[in-house]
């Protein structure tokens, strides 16, 4: 056990950030060793919101356990559900109707924008700018309203089920999404005026928390955090699932590997998500929204893994089935867990105040890390 307060033998000071701290966005506990203002070591202590979801899933049926996954990465709940549904469909060899596929991708991309909006507001707030938070939530609320109308919930959505989606989209869905695209396009320039172009902000981000491409891969960092280092790892491109291979969008890459690069990846990624939504919103095919499946699902004996791209990186669902109605073992490979493991490496040698910028641009969601 580390001594959690006081001084080390070399005379360095140990301080605790969290588990209740405004900059950690949840119950993350960091034990930081500092020499003056310089970080010597960052050691995360996890588990404050560990619910043992993997163990719980072992006694839930294949239809039931999806609801628990919304509670992991609650900002990408659609995408978590999507991964589980794909994994089960893969095992059952179910063909998902075209309408459901398009609706799923639309929902995924709306979720991605909502997640990045929240990240943007919260990260700017960590760095001391309070106004961006309200700007971000203005757009995010519009997405949440769309979700509420169609899915009946605003955060833990549970809309994607094995075989398709829970229910058909609301009649207002298309119009509201179009209104949102207009709203987004009229407001996105404010983001750059307010934060991106701000010289104080840039000084706090550029050159801070450098992560080399080799280290990013070695630490298993994925998603926008790795793409900021120039690592091509967008699962939608590398291992396309659903209809992503038919869509036109670019994988956003930056090469500088610092906090500002990771910031720019997320900002530019939102525009790509809008591009995907624009391609699909007028082209939702008619037909069923759910394939016909049995009431009780039984996966054949075997192992199934599905990777998807959440707003934070590659999320993997690994199901081991013994042929029964519940999974024998389930493992969720959450992107946040691996991304966090790189924090110590990135932070060593930087100033304590810069740690907030690094944590902000890693986009950590604690229930995703703890599971």
């Amino acid at each position, binding site marked *: 056990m580390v001594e959690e307060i006081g001084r080390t033998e070399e005379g360095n000071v140990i301080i605790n950030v969290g588990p209740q701290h405004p900059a950690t966005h949840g119950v993350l506990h960091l034990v930081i060793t500092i020499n003056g203002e310089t970080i010597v070591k960052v050691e995360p202590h996890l588990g404050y919101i560990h619910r043992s979801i993997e163990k719980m899933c072992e006694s839930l049926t294949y239809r039931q356990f999806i609801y628990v996954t919304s509670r992991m990465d609650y900002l990408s709940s659609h995408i978590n559900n999507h991964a589980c549904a794909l994994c089960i469909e893969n095992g059952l060899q179910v063909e998902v109707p075209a309408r459901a596929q398009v609706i799923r991708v639309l929902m995924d991309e709306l979720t991605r924008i909502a997640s990045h909006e929240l990240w943007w507001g919260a990260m700017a707030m960590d760095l001391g700018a309070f106004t961006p938070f309200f700007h971000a939530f203005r757009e995010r609320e519009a997405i949440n309203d769309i979700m509420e109308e169609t899915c009946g919930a605003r955060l833990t959505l549970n809309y994607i089920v094995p075989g398709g989606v829970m229910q058909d989209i609301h009649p207002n869905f298309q119009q509201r999404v179009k209104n949102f695209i207009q709203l987004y396009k009229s407001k996105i320039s404010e983001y750059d005026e307010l934060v991106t172009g701000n010289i104080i902000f840039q000084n706090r981000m550029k050159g801070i928390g450098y992560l080399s491409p080799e280290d990013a891969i070695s630490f298993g960092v994925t998603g926008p955090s790795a793409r900021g280092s120039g690592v091509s790892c967008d699962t939608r491109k590398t291992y396309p699932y659903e209809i992503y291979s038919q869509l036109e969008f670019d994988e956003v890459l930056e090469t500088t590997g610092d906090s500002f690069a990771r910031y720019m990846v997320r900002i530019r990624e939102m525009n790509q998500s809008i591009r995907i939504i624009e391609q699909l919103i007028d082209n939702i095919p008619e037909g069923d929204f759910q394939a016909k499946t049995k009431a009780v699902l039984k996966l054949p004996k075997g192992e*199934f893994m599905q990777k998807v791209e959440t707003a934070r990186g590659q999320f993997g669902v690994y199901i081991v089935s013994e042929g029964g109605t519940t999974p024998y073992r389930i493992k969720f490979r959450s992107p946040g867990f691996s991304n966090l493991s790189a924090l110590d490496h990135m932070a060593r040698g930087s100033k304590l105040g810069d740690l907030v910028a690094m944590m902000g641009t890693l986009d950590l969601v604690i229930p995703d890390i703890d599971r």
Partner: protein
Amino acid sequence: MTNETLKEKITELLPAATFEEGVQWLNILVTPADWHAFAEQLRKDESLVFDLLFCLTCIDWKTHLTMVYHLESTKFRHNIVVKSTLDVALPAISTVSDIWQTANFHEREVYEMFGVNFINHPDLRLLILPDGWENKRPLLKNFEDPVNMIKL
């Protein structure tokens, strides 16, 4: 590389490896004693370059434990799954945190949840569980907890 060529290449590297027909990817079974040297070859071989350890986990089969490593090459975009069977009474396998740094956290998680001892791990102690949970191994099938509800 396709699964067939991967299979040939890996047989060349480690003749003792056995294969299992996986649904998606090639499954390779190795003994815990072979694992570390084999992992190094997988990472360094120029035609393989498995540089991303995507997932590391363990399965409790009651009679034995199985370590499962999902490896991916970001250069060639091929995937394999490596498995190793461990003794249930004294599970131990060599660490790979010196090859893939992400293994450091993942192995600590498997250590506290399944009690697997990772030989030569630089920092093997509880990561997620609070103090006092050493040797409780909550993800094993025979784990019972009268206080915290985990069985639904």
